[in-house]
């Protein structure tokens, strides 16, 4: 009956809602109970003699009538809570409320008759009282249900805010983790591969220097010159491959120039022995992505390429960039091994989470002859960076 963000409310929430309903009904009901008591004392006065010929004093009479009314309120409140009218569809809830009201009116009428609340010469007064009680009870229950509904909405909004705050904190955490991962990767490469190669190059140059110091003939001179040329070639290769790769790990090449240039720069780094096909369809120039979305798509392409090369034994790679239906799609398809049953997908999962946070999706599809990693993001996620 009451809209709630969760389809199946948590038992704790249900209990809290039931308590709120009882409290609301009791508070309003008590007001009516004392009001009705005062009204009946003023209208009917204190009948005498009664209760076996003994007349009651005004205080005892008022207490009796108020007790009957309070008991009636209790029946309405507990009956409504027991029948869980706040969790039922509208018409069932209305029927339950009517049933509870009729039962409460009947019990009250029976008690009034038992204790001769109304003058014996006016027996129909009890019936009138009972008939009047039903709409009053329905109004009180309706008010109680409305207050519970408002409370649920407020709770739902509060939880949504809380969930959004948690999502934001998680996104920040993921970003920091990603930064740490990249820093570690760069540090490992600098410390490991690059340092070793620089040590070897320095040794080679030192040897050449020592040879020149000790004097060389024409033949040895050629050997030294050849060694220096080799060092130069390796330095050039280090600059071209390793330093560019490190730089790209920190910030993809050509990212500021647009998605297509960044994607092409990335694909150009794949060894030329592997066939690579790039197709670009309907991607606006400049592309309508903000820097973060563009970075995420480039990271997705990078992930698809590195997984294909590392785990997929790729024999051929194809990149498709496409703009359609207000989305920008990047798909890396590789021919080679299909993804294994339990691939190390933590990187993909992290990336997928960040992409879905921005309203997109990352899907890895296994194919008989390889795999396809498809990422899309809504176009126009911000001003072009």
């Amino acid at each position, binding site marked *: 009956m009451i809209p709630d963000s969760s389809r199946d409310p948590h038992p704790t929430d249900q209990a809290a809602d039931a308590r709120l309903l009882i409290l609301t009904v009791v508070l309003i009901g008590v007001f009516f109970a004392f009001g009705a008591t005062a009204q009946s004392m003023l209208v009917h006065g204190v009948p005498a003699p009664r209760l076996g010929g003994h007349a009651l004093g005004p205080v005892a009479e008022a207490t009796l009538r108020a007790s009957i009314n309070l008991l009636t309120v209790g029946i309405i409140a507990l009956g409504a809570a027991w029948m869980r009218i706040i969790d039922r569809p509208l018409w069932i809830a209305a029927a339950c409320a009517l049933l509870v009201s009729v039962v409460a009116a009947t019990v009250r009428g029976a008690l009034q008759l038992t204790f001769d609340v109304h003058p014996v010469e006016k027996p129909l007064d009890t019936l009138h009282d009972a008939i009047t009680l039903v709409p009053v009870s329905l109004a009180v229950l309706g008010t109680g249900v409305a207050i519970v509904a408002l409370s649920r909405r407020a709770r739902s909004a509060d939880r949504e805010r809380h969930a959004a705050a948690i999502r934001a904190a998680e996104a920040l955490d993921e970003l920091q983790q990603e930064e740490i991962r990249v820093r570690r990767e760069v540090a490992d490469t600098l410390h490991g591969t690059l340092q070793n190669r620089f040590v070897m190059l320095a040794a080679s140059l030192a040897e050449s220097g020592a040879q020149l110091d000790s004097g060389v003939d024409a033949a040895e001179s050629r050997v030294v010159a050849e060694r220096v040329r080799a060092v130069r070639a390796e330095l050039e290769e280090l600059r071209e491959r390793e330093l*560019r790769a490190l730089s790209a790990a920190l910030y993809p*090449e*050509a990212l*500021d*120039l*647009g998605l*297509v*240039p960044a994607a*092409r*720069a990335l694909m*150009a*780094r*794949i*060894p*030329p*022995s*592997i*066939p*690579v*096909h*790039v197709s*670009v369809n309907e991607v606006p*120039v*400049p592309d309508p992505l903000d820097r973060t979305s563009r970075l995420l798509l480039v990271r997705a392409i990078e992930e698809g390429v590195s997984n294909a090369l590392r785990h997929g034994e790729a024999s*051929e790679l194809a990149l498709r960039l496409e703009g359609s239906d207000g989305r920008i799609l990047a798909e890396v398809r590789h021919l080679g091994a299909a993804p294994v049953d339990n691939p190390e997908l933590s990187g993909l999962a992290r990336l997928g989470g960040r992409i879905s946070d921005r309203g997109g999706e990352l899907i890895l599809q296994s194919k008989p002859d390889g795999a396809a990693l498809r990422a899309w993001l809504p176009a126009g996620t911000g001003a072009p960076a």
Partner: protein
Amino acid sequence: MTQTLSIGVLEDQPLFREMLLHLLRSVPGFTAVAAGDCAAARDNWDPQHLDVALLDVELPDGTGIDAGRALQRANPHLAIVLLSAVDRTQLLVDLDEREQWSYLSKNSSTSAAKLIRTLRAAAAGHCIIDPEIITSRTVRAGGRLATLSARHVEVLQLVTEGLTNQSIAEQLGIALSSVNNHVNAIYASLDIDRERCNPRVAAARIFLAETA
């Protein structure tokens, strides 16, 4: 006769910008203006009075590509020469075939003489790509280029550099008719429709797209 050329230099590094400006102004017949970012070029240059724009690719407030396009919208006859410290020739692959832009690398052995030659050639309607970038490339497996013979790849490299058939013949020491035959065979292999586009530019784009 001295060729007069008006050149716009868009370069964000002040020292390099000043050196370029100084060099270009020292060439007889050349006039040059300079800007450090896209906004300054937009505000201070009159594209109608420029023959060639020499543009750095990565700029503080945009890209040389965007700046070049904006300038060419104002003056379709303006020649564009991109100049970059890193190999960004991939950018040329996605240009419209009418955008016959030239490209020089700051890292290569680009000399003052070579820069001036390139600016003159670009102004004359040629599309020049830095030879050092071209020769450092390897043909990627599986593409159309992989079906060409070694000789055809060699000729295509020279076409991509912006050389005329006559210059290619001189460089390779073969007859002009042989070069013509090679070039026609390359166009056929790469499925280039000579009626619909500038075949030399189309061949150069394929070379850039299918090499690494």
